[in-house]
């Protein structure tokens, strides 16, 4: 693992208040209503930001805390499975409708997306290795294209809260997002220097994030 990587993942104690502030900002009624008024903003901006907050939260934990959580959860695959199931729920149109119609459901979304998707994904990320991460990325990219197409091609509204044109717009943004993620991820595989130092794994054998 090169030194640059550790620098990027060094514990940042000041991060937690900043994350909390961002989370609070997203939860503010005017911001929340504005983001949730459009399917595109709801799915492509608000929800990924909530996942990113959870993911950043993982980096505000100490290395020992991260190792303990990964071991307690049963390893990176268990965490990945948890993140997959939780994110699958929030991909369902009915879940989106509920989040818009009910404050309680929206609150659940604000808690589960960071804690059950972003955090476990970030904790599982590094131990997954290039192969596992590559599989997650490629699966995400192909599924984003697939779901984007579903939203574009659907002959009816999949969510009661949003109009068909908004739905199609969200679909196109998913396709654009997939293309952007693909280009960024593939591009990142091209850069880097030969590894000079050896990574120190967790006591359980999992590489720490």
């Amino acid at each position, binding site marked *: 693992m090169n030194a640059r990587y550790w620098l990027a993942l060094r514990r940042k104690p000041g991060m937690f208040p900043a994350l909390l502030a961002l989370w609070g900002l997203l939860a503010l009624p005017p911001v929340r209503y504005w983001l949730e008024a459009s399917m595109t903003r709801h799915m492509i901006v608000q929800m990924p930001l909530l996942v990113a907050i959870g993911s950043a939260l993982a980096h505000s934990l100490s290395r020992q805390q991260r190792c303990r959580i990964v071991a307690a959860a049963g390893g990176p695959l268990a965490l990945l499975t948890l993140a997959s199931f939780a994110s699958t729920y929030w991909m369902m149109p009915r879940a989106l409708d509920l989040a818009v119609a009910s404050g309680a459901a929206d609150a659940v979304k604000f808690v589960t997306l960071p804690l059950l998707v972003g955090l476990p994904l970030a904790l599982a990320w590094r131990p997954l290795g*290039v192969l596992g991460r590559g599989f997650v990325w490629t699966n995400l990219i192909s599924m984003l*294209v*697939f779901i984007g*197409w579903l939203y574009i091609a659907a002959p009816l509204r999949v969510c009661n809260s949003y109009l068909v044109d908004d739905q199609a717009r969200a679909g196109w943004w998913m396709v654009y997002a997939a293309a952007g993620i693909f280009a960024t991820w593939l591009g990142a595989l*091209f850069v*880097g220097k*030969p*590894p000079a130092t050896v990574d120190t794994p967790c006591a359980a054998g999992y590489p720490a994030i």
Partner: protein
Amino acid sequence: MADYNYVAPQEHATKGGVLAYLLTTAAVLLLMMLFGLVMRAEQAQLISIGANAFYQLMTLHGAGMVGIAGIAGAAIMWHFLGQYVRLSTTVLYANLALFLVGVAMAIGAVFIGNFHGAWTFLFPLPGNSMGLWSNEAAATFLAGMLVLGTGFLLFQLDIARALIATYGGLGRALGWPQLFGHDDGKAPPPTVVASAMVTVVNIVALVVGASILAMMLVNLYYPEFAIDPLLAKGMIYFFGHVFINATIYMAVIAVYEILPRYTHRPWKANKIFLLSWNCSTLMVMFIFPHHLLMDFAFPKWMLVMGHVIGYLNTFPILIVTGYGALILVYRSGIVWDMASRLLAVSMLGWAAGAMPAFIDGTIRVNYIMHNTLWVPGHFHTYLLLGMVAMVFGFMYYVTKPAAQHKDALIDRLAYWAYVVGSFGFALAFLYAGKESVARRYAEHLPAWVPYDRIGTAFATLVVGAALVFVGRFIARLAHARSAHLRAPAPLGVAA
């Protein structure tokens, strides 16, 4: 500057996983060749299996050949790349297991479900069988392709992981520091460069393939979720064309690794070599529209791109590799045996096979030639005499009992039967194409039958030769497990 003195590489025993791949290749390849022979005999009106069975065989022959070319290429790449980077045996076996599951699903869909919508599964055919097959049969075939693709994606991701672990990034594995900077002679070996190229293009192709397969699966059951047929065709051809192209780029690693052992001349990745592979990394992904030139509704820029890149991509790797092989062999004192012969003829087959595609890639020619037997003539030359010859050469090499071992008369006869048979078989396709014989027709007009009969005779010769190759491979399998010297020293050079 690179050091051009030859340093003999260490010989390695062939891993069990690679042998499992090669055994699968031998079995599936023979079966696919038999299917091909039966189809040609049907068109030649020598047998009568009926149109339904013809299209079933055509579907399996196409899907099976693309899949097994991938498996055979993967075996060669894994065997040699494993000498430079640490690869995962678990992923190697996982890919084979998923391949076998995918093949079983495709065979079930065809023989039990009667699916015969061709390996290209072009939308909307799978869902519009007019009662000839069920949605379940089409779904099983499409899902089989998805399973097969998932295995290859895992395989390629593992190659990417191993390359990044050793070289730091795919850019370095493609020799970017030497290509764009000072050539310090430390460029990655050709095997690594080729593997990096194949990894990049295959990952992109497989992700696109997975997307369109998932879309078509939904459309089968919910047709109201419509797919733009042009988009579907573009995505399918992108996936299929890149994947089958990549198989020869994997198999050519056998040429890069084995010919230097026979000639005692190193094959170095110099700037021209790196430039050609890097250019092809991009061009292979943009060449597929040369199969869509008849689809006038496609955006004009795509068709122009297919035309121009179709011309350009014919040359870089082919010339660098073909010319490199000639330079390597010229006055080297090479001792010809089955492995070196098959690898040398594969260069000829690759070059000869690319030419009909080059001609067909011209828009004016394409309007007339593309739906004729000219196109099967192209890819059969390219695959039979190019890619498959590399695979048979590799099989002979890894199972060779000793460096000085002499080939039996039957092997030498089989070699000539294979070369003559393959050329004759491909030329029968090409000539029929020139005479405007339509492709993908089960039943042929009486005027077309003579070409079919000539093709069938040559196909019989090819199958006979392949039986000898496969028989020899299986009989000598035990020799693959030891790390002994296999290539004889060139004449005049001390062993």
